[in-house]
């Protein structure tokens, strides 16, 4: 059985359809990428898995339905979420930002802090610093780190490279590689196809709220339209 299974997912904002008939699954320890342009429905899809939006269809995580569960219960089931644009709490220190993420999992705070600092040594150096003095890349690391404080089994990354310089994307990429090695199950929603291809074993193309193509990077690369629209070749 898949670790995360999304079946016939539909999300409406009023009368507007944001997600239509989306189905995909992720096996444990694998990385899946959702590639789509602005407004394709990537964030709505991740928000739905986290229980922030009202949805129809079915989402099964680790053998249990997430239907009607509030975000608190879903996060308690070890779903970690790093929202887009390195969302942080600017007026708080780096360490306090991480500790807000640990509120629902306070049993292993020291161990989890050590793990995050091992993953992102820059955050350890900056732990007493106000978060709004961090660079864009460091903010993204902090947002990722906050998600890891919950010891998630599934990590959802919403546009982790958005607005970052190539060298910083390299740092984020290294972090994702090390997460994969550790055995995390990862769901990446990205516009940046090259970043997603590098990590995801399976990629889904999301357009106007619907999945229009699925496959490995190699398989999708054979489609001329996808190559031109997303891979830039």
């Amino acid at each position, binding site marked *: 059985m898949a670790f995360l299974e999304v079946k016939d997912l539909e999300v409406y904002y009023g009368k507007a359809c944001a997600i239509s008939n989306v189905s995909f699954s992720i096996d444990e320890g694998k990385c899946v990428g959702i590639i789509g342009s602005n407004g394709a429905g990537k964030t709505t899809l991740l*928000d739905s898995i*986290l229980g*922030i939006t009202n949805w129809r269809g079915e989402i099964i995580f680790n053998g249990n339905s997430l239907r009607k569960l*509030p*975000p*608190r219960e*879903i*996060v*308690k089931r070890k*779903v970690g*979420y790093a*929202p887009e644009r390195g*969302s*942080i*709490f*600017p*007026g*708080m220190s780096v*360490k*306090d*930002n991480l*500790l*807000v*993420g640990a*509120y*629902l999992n*306070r049993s292993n705070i020291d161990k989890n802090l050590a793990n995050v600092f091992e993953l992102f040594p820059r955050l350890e150096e*900056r732990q*007493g*610093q*106000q978060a709004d*003095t961090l660079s864009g890349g460091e903010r993204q690391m902090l947002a990722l780190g*906050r998600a890891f404080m*919950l010891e998630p089994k599934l990590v959802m990354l919403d546009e982790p490279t958005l607005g970052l310089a190539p060298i910083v994307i390299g740092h984020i990429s290294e972090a994702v590689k090390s997460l994969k090695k550790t055995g995390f199950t990862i769901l990446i929603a990205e516009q940046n196809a090259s970043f997603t291809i590098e990590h995801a074993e399976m990629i889904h193309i999301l357009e106007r709220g619907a999945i229009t193509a699925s496959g490995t990077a190699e398989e999708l690369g054979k489609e001329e339209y996808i190559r031109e629209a997303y891979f830039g070749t």
Partner: protein
Amino acid sequence: MVNWITSVKSFRWWLVAIVVMMVLPFIVPPSFLRICIMANFMAIFAMSWDMMSGYTGYVSFGHPFLIGLAGYVSAMLSHQGGFQPPHIVLPLYVTMPLGIAAAVGGGMLFFLPSMRVRGPYFSLISLAFLMILSRIMIAAGAMTGGDRGLTSLPYLVTGAVNNYWLSTGIMFAVAIGLWLVARSDVGHVLKAIRMDEDVVESSGLSTYRFKRFAFILSAITAGIGGVFYTHYMGSISPAGAFDYIFLLNIIVSTVVGGMGTILGPIFGGYFITFFTESTRTLLEGAWRFMAYSLVALAIVYFRPGGFYGIVHDIAAWFRAKRRGGLQYDQVT
């Protein structure tokens, strides 16, 4: 994050403040103490407003609703005239807790549902509730004394010195209690809600539960301030309890002191009270409030963190000097 029971070291400034306040009655005249009493109450009201608006970012214009409701309930139940009928007159140790409970209950009934909307919408709804309560108190004249309010209420203690001890004790108890909450894990989440509520939600935390907690704490504090203030003054009226200048003083005290800090509103409460009192003979009526508004604007313009920010910066400067240079991690 700091544990609930913080180290003795972090209490050292509280001890200094308590010692200074304990010495005051022996070296200043009763008239000065009476200003301190008013400043203590203003500090309590400002801390209460800070817990709700400064911490969660929900700017309330209806805070006197909570203060006035607590004061009125205790006043009506303890008033010699009592209800008309059946002439219920209860002792203060019964009416004051009931007043505080009324602030929490009334606030939860009216304010809490409004916290589902954000920004100016919440502020306007809270203002509307304040105006409605004010009108109700005027309309229900048989119980509330109408426009003139209730007078000749029983006092808890009499004399400037006794009231100074009482108000100072309450102010410190409230301040240390709220300060400990602010330093706890819950306090950090409340600050995070002010900065980005959506991100807090995405961490799986129900922001509504935290806001409700902050609101209840704020209402309890407002209620405590309201009942003690009412029985210090010995009277309550719509013009005093629901006046917009009173609301303005509470907000300005918090903003000038430093929002979201708990300690800042104490500085702010003392500043506003002493400023308005010391300029009473120099400036008349509206000019006095214009002067203090200008001073408040200047403070917020040049140092948005208020007095707390100024003190924080000075302390950081001394720490840096002791270490031999400003550290990067001290940038705020």
